[in-house]
């Protein structure tokens, strides 16, 4: 028995030793996403978006064959760090693409950038990584976390809402969301209500909202909380009377469960499935054909991440050894983003447009968010200045 194990171990070691020599030509990309638990749907959109891009690019990035290694961070920072070490040390990946959640991004940031591997976020954009702890090896094809909330704050301000009711789960991202909203909103906040994370029954909040009669409410209720809040808000008859502004609450990952209850509700985003660019139309149609659901922004960010890597490798002739040359090529962002205008700021975060979007039913009966108006043009995040100061 012992001999067998040793032999197997030896065989495995030899295979491992042989692998780098064989795979020298293959570009390795680690996809670090949340693929299990209640938030798995977000990671699935990102994974499917990346793989769709790989298919559209003929399985190659910058002319090189690609091996994509998908790992599940389980939305646990400690698990994510262990898996990232596997990607870096065992698989020796050239890029890490992901994650969805900011706590995972913060925990995995150091091991990845310390190993001089490029880290491309497809969603998470925590303020410290955009500001003080920005790093030349970290880029985001998404946004800085506050920005979608800022869109709604600006809209509430521009529409002249005098009294707004704010509602968020009681944890860091919830507090950041309300802070982001208040960056541009200068009117009165009648209530800043925090409910325990994973609250599912909002009936007493709804009574409070109805009694305070605000001009609008703003909320950040990701996942199952958002599904319940939207349904109960509609059932309480408030949806037609008090505008419902939200971010990461009414999007294509939640709409299949929210159904008609969400129609007309406003949200902020850097993209929407109906955004009118030829590339985007092709992407949405192909995504729906392949996965039978309307893509959410996570899928778009991941698709763009693949295009970004492809463009950078084309510029370096497929080489990844010269990190400075590769970084300069990434920084150029020489690709056609699905969302239209796109360039990187000095902190590796996009300078892009933001839109007010609205949930609507398409003629084929599926729900999606649709652009109402552009709110910010070539918008830079609020933390970019702090990054420039540290570099």
């Amino acid at each position, binding site marked *: 028995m012992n001999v067998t194990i040793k032999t197997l171990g030896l065989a495995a070691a030899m295979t491992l030793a042989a692998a780098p020599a064989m795979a020298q030509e293959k570009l390795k990309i680690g996809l670090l996403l949340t693929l*299990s*638990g*209640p938030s*798995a*749907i977000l990671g699935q959109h990102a994974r499917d978006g990346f793989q769709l891009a790989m298919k559209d690019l003929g399985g190659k990035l910058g002319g090189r064959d690609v091996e994509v290694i998908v790992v599940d961070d389980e939305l646990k920072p400690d698990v994510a760090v262990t898996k990232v070490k596997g990607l870096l040390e065992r698989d020796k990946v050239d890029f890490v693409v992901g994650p969805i959640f900011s706590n995972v991004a913060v925990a995995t940031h150091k091991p990845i950038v310390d190993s001089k591997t490029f880290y491309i976020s497809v969603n998470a954009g925590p303020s410290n990584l955009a500001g003080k702890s920005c790093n030349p090896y970290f880029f985001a094809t998404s946004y800085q976390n506050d920005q979608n909330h800022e869109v709604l704050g600006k809209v509430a301000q521009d529409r002249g809402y005098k009294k707004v009711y704010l509602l968020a789960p*009681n944890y860091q991202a919830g507090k950041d969301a309300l802070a982001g909203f208040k960056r541009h909103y200068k009117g009165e906040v009648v*209530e*800043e*209500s*925090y409910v*325990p994370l*994973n609250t*599912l*029954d909002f*009936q*007493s909040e*709804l*009574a*409070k909202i*109805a*009694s305070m*009669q605000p001009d609008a409410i703003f909320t950040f209720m990701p996942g*199952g909380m958002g*599904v*319940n809040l939207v349904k*109960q808000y509609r*059932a*309480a*008859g*408030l949806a037609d*009377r008090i505008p419902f502004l939200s971010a990461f609450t009414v999007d294509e990952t939640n709409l299949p*469960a929210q159904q008609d209850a969400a129609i007309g509700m406003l949200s902020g985003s850097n993209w929407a499935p109906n955004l009118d660019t030829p590339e985007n139309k092709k992407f949405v149609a192909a995504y729906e054909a392949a996965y039978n659901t309307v893509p959410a922004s996570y899928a778009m960010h991941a698709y763009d991440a693949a295009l970004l890597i492809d463009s950078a490798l084309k510029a370096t002739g497929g080489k990844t050894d010269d990190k400075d040359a590769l970084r300069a090529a990434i920084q150029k962002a020489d690709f056609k983003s699905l969302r239209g205008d796109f360039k990187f700021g000095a902190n590796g975060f996009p300078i892009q447009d933001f839109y007010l979007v609205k949930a609507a039913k398409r003629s084929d009966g599926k729900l999606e968010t649709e652009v109402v108006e552009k709110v910010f043009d070539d918008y830079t995040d609020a933390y970019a200045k702090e990054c420039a100061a540290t570099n």
Partner: protein
Amino acid sequence: MTATFFAIQALNGLQFGLILFLIAAGLTLVFGVMDFINLAHGVQYMVGAYLVAAFSAWTGSFGWGLLLALPTALAFGLLLEVLIFRHLYDRDHLDQVLATFGVILFLNQGVKFVWGAAPLSVPVPEILSGSVEIMDGLLYPVYRIAIIAAGLLVAALLYVVVSHTRVGMLVRAGATNAPMVSALGVNIRRLFMIVFGFGAMLAGFAGAMVAPILSVQPGMGDNILILAFVVIVIGGIGSIRGAFLAALLIGLVDTLGRSFAPNLLRLVLDPSAASQTGRAIAPMLIYIFMAAVLFFRPSGLFPVKR
């Protein structure tokens, strides 16, 4: 902050309290009669919700789903009793806690395996899908009123069964002195089994009733179990009457506390400090309330006389 607003929040508190009562009723009997700590009681609430989701999807009607889910929840409770819990009655509390905690882990993973991790939603039954306007601009779903009615009905039925039937008498006797009941020739094991099965069914009924208004997901019974323990401790272990009163009190304290604590604090603090402190205090209120009750009545509001 009008009287109507207070009334609505009281209604919300009442509804929450009645759901808690349905869960706590079984728990308090199992704990009081059998001296058995069943942490897996919350899981039976979750199982009830999943059963009604599965059966109403299968039959296409919530009513049939509920009718099928209840006997299944009962059978499931009995199955657990025969397979696992029966072997734990004579062991000490730590063994019971460990074993029933294992059942929680097993069943949480089990529902994930069968139904997936994504939350399921159950449509509100057609005849109860309307709503009434109870306050300027706020509609109250009829279904929630139905939950209140169903909770009160079950409470009344339990009262009749426990106070005015032979089985109820044996249950009360068992709660006071189980060895004596056994010595008088009553098959105490069978009594335990019946109590356990019906406790499981009540928890399942609570899960089934909330399924249309909350999403059905793995682990949904874990938080509510803690509250159910708070309820039976306040009410007095083994007392249905105590569980009823304590459940309503907890429901009201929690709901009203969350909505009014910040406002009351505003009288003494400036608004931003009040909202921050209110937010911190509101979730603690029920535990403060429990500590206060236990200070004055260490064995709960309606202790079973021994």
